Structures are given as structure tokens and as C-alpha cells.
């Protein structure tokens, strides 16, 4: 029996008359890279939003490390060890690159209003650690050079890397990346692939929603294919590439 980190049981989510996720059940293995793919509108981003607590599922349950997380608020789920990035990079444009990553340390630190305003020992102990950690994660994604630049001034590729660094700073057990390669060139995408492997090698499980098939086939251990909110296939990259239903969905059925 393999070690399961994330378990989704019969997840359903509808918006008005549209069923975005239809009775979705799947397991994600610890220390794996799992890609979720599918045509536009398949429900990939909705799935990430349901898992991370942005939407509550209509039905079904999600377990992280055997703990029920569906129904919790996003910030509580983050504290449980699940981090994510966003499709349309949600960076804090009003802060420096380094400060963005320092926000990621929020859930693993405790200093509140009183200890911050009065510079009590708790805050003075935590600040240098937060700073060090943030530098370390920036280093990992290769953004140390722009640490003190305004976030709004760095290119979109760097913003995506920044989002990953910020997610890692929450010290997650599992991180979900929503289209991290969107807007990156070929070379940047290759580097991203290396980074995602490095994240897995740190012992963090990676779930990735991505349209770049070359990247997906290259790095994934497991692929889940969605179409109209249903799982139509699941397996190793080679199995998915040979799956007739997947090919039909992507290329259209041959007459």
C-alpha cells in the first residue's frame, strides 16, 4: 500500500446549472509529481480552488494527511500544510520581492499586534529567522538578485517563480501550482521543470495544472485527465499518451 497524502472522495461542485466538478475521486501519492490536465473548462482550476478552500464543495470530502480539510477556510488549510499558486499571478504588487516571500512565513510564525508594535522578544526572535528563510527560498528559485526590487517591476516569468517561493515559505507538505509555465519561454520552462523536481526532492508533494504537454510529460509521475469535471483517465505519462479517449478529447474524434 502506497503512502497517500491527499484524498478526494466524490467531490462535486456546481455553479448555477453548470457542473464544474462531477463526483471526482482521486488519490495523490506522497513525494510524487501529479499533473492535472484537460481541455479549457475541464474544471482544473475549480478543483484547485475547492481543494485549497476558496470554494466549498457541494458534496464530498477531501483529506490531507488523513485529516478532513474540506469545509475549512483557506488560511486554515494553509496551516495544515497545503500551499498553492494562482493562474493569474496573485503577487503583492505593493511590496518588495523579499517581503512577498516573508508573507509566506506568516503561518509558521506567531508575533501578533502587541509584540510587533512593542518589539517584544518573540517578534525580535522571529524576524531574523523569517528573513533568512525568505532569502533561502528566493535563492532556490533564483530571484536573489531582485530581492529588494518592487514586485511590480519584475517580469512575469519572475513573478511566477516568486509565487512558488512564497508558497514554499509556508512550509507545505503539498504544493499545487496552477499553470506555472504560462508566459514562460522554452528555456525558462525547462528551468521550471528542474525547480519542480527539486521541490519534490525536498520531500514536498507537487500537484501541477499545466497546458505545456512537453513539461507535463517530462516531469510527472502520475497524470490525471479531466474533461467536463469528470476524470477520464489516470496513469503514467506513457499510458496517457497512448490513451485513445485522451487523444480524442485533445484532438477531436476522427471521423
Amino acid at each position, binding site marked *: 500500500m502506497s503512502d497517500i497524502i491527499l484524498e478526494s472522495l466524490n467531490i462535486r461542485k456546481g455553479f448555477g446549472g453548470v457542473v464544474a466538478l462531477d463526483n471526482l475521486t482521486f488519490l495523490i501519492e506522497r513525494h510524487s509529481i501529479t499533473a492535472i490536465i484537460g481541455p479549457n473548462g475541464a474544471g482544473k482550476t475549480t478543483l484547485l480552488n475547492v481543494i485549497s478552500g476558496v470554494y466549498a464543495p457541494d458534496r464530498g470530502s477531501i483529506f490531507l494527511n488523513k485529516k478532513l480539510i474540506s469545509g475549512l*477556510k483557506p*488560511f486554515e488549510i494553509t496551516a495544515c500544510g497545503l500551499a498553492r499558486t494562482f493562474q493569474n499571478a*496573485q503577487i503583492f504588487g505593493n511590496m518588495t520581492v523579499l517581503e512577498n516571500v516573508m*508573507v509566506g512565513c*506568516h503561518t509558521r510564525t506567531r*508575533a501578533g499586534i502587541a509584540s510587533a508594535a512593542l518589539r517584544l522578544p518573540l517578534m525580535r526572535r522571529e524576524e531574523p529567522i523569517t528573513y533568512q528563510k525568505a532569502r533561502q527560498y528566493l535563492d532556490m528559485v533564483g530571484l536573489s538578485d531582485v530581492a529588494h526590487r518592487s514586485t511590480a517591476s519584475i517580469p512575469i516569468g519572475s513573478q511566477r517563480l516568486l509565487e512558488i517561493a512564497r508558497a514554499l515559505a509556508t512550509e507545505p507538505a503539498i504544493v499545487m501550482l496552477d499553470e506555472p509555465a504560462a508566459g514562460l519561454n522554452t528555456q525558462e520552462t525547462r528551468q521550471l521543470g528542474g525547480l519542480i523536481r527539486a521541490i519534490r526532492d525536498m520531500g514536498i508533494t507537487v500537484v501541477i495544472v499545466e497546458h505545456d504537454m512537453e513539461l507535463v510529460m517530462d516531469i510527472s509521475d502520475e497524470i490525471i485527465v479531466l474533461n467536463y469535471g469528470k476524470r477520464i483517465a489516470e496513469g503514467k505519462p506513457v499510458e496517457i499518451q497512448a490513451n485513445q479517449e485522451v487523444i480524442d478529447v485533445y484532438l477531436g474524434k476522427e471521423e
Partner: protein
Amino acid sequence: MIFAAGIFCLPFFIKSPYYLSILVFIGIYSITTLGLNLLMGYAGQISLGHGAFFGIGAYTSGILTVHYHLPISVAFIVALIITAGIAYLIGVPSLKLKGHYLAMATLAFGEIVNIVLNAAIDLTGGPSGFGEIPRIKLLGVVLDSEQKYFYFVWLVFIIFFILTSNLIHSRVGRALRSIHGSELAAAAMGVNVAQLKVQVFMLSALVASVSGSLYVHFVTFISPTTCNIMFSILLVMMVVVGGMANVWGCVLGAALLTVLPEYLRVFEDYDIIVYGFILLFIVMFLPGGLTQGVQILLHRLRRTANRATDT
């Protein structure tokens, strides 16, 4: 430090009670603006009702010391407790709203407080207000002159300034700014957005209440016009004109909007038009407020200084 030393030297040059009292008002409004800036500039939430919290502080201090003869310190603490309670009750539902809706909700709150202050004549004296509010006695010294109160108010300001600066450069400060940047991402980083918004709303209301208490023991008179809707909007203008998300902007904004009407008296009936135009120009050409203006100016000066040394 330089700023503190500079401020405390001012009374050696300025002896006129009129100018000193203007400086006292600048100090009081700077404190209010510091709190409001935490909410608006840093957390990105608007409030058009902070004049009401100023008023709650002022009236509670005034009523308890005049009608109930309580010591000023006790009245002050009761004012804080009442403000915290009201800010919590108002903040929890209204901070679920965003943008214009939040503005409307806080505006309505301010108006309700003003109506209550006008109507509860037994306690508040109604539209004409009430006076003979005692002055603060500190370490056996009654703060009865403009000069004494000047030192007191600016000392309080510097304490608040340090506390606010500490707060901004901390885990909480970063969380506040992250809410402004993206609520979605802030929550994904583990920030309890709803709770933090209410906390900062209460904090800024408490700061407004403190400055209201400071006001009432200086002027020794209070009426509803002191804390009406126009005053709430003036506070918002001080934050915007000074520079959002900048602690120095609070002083600049409060100073300009306190001093400007005094100087514009030369325009007589047209003063309000000139006033409006000046504010419009600042907001249009310096969207970052006066602090942005100062930064640009310093940058230019440095460049010309460099060029002068090069040649």
C-alpha cells in the same frame, strides 16, 4: 530622532499661542491619521466613519469628566473600551463589504453617530455641544497653556509613530499589506483576512478615539460639528494627500490640511474654491501624495548636486 528634536525645538521659535494651537491640532490630527493610514494605506480598506470614532472618544471623555466628575484617566480608558466595542460591532459586518459598499456602510455609521450626538441633548448638549471640560493634569502640572499641551500632544504622537512603524515592519504589517495586494493570495499564505481586517479597523478606531480625547481636553468644548461627515472625509483626505502607506505622509497631510484653510483666508469668499483646486492638483499630479513630492524633490536635488560636483 531628528524629527523629534526638531519638533520639540519649535516652541523656542514660535511663541504665538495662535501658531502653537495650530501645531497642537496638527499633532492631534496626525495621530488620527496614523491610525487611519494603517487601515487605508496599508490594509487597503476605506472608512468614511472615522470622524465618528474621534467623536466617541471626545464625547466619552467630555461627558464622564463633566457630568460624572470622573478622573480624566478613567474617562480615557472607558472611552477606549466603548470605542473598541462599537468598532467591533461595526467592523465585523461592514468589513465583509468591499470598495464603494464599505465606504457607504462606514459613511452611514458616521451619520448615525452624529444624529445620536445631536439628539441626546441631556448628555451631549445637542447641536450646541457643551464646554468646561477639564484640562489634563500630568505629574502635578496642569496642561493649561498651548506650549505645555504642544509638548504633551507631540510626545504622544512620537510614541504612536514608533509603535506604528514597528507594526508596519513586522509579520502583522506584511500581512496587512498583503490584504491590500491580493486578498486571495493573502488567505493562501495563511493570513486570517477577515480577522485581521477587524483587528486593524478596531486599532485605527482606538487611535482615533485617543486623538478625540486629546482634542477635547485641549479645546475644553465639543459639539457635533467637530466630528461630522465632513471631518471624516477630511481625515481620509489627510491620508491621501499625505501619501498612502507612508507614516511620514500622516504628518504632511495633517499639516497641510490644517494650515491651508488658515492661509487661504486672504481669498475670503473664494477660499473653498482655491482649497479644492489645490487638493485636486495634488491628487492629480502626485498620486503618491506629498511624500511622493518630497521624494521627487530630494531625488532632483541630489542629481543637481551630483552634476555640480562632476563639472
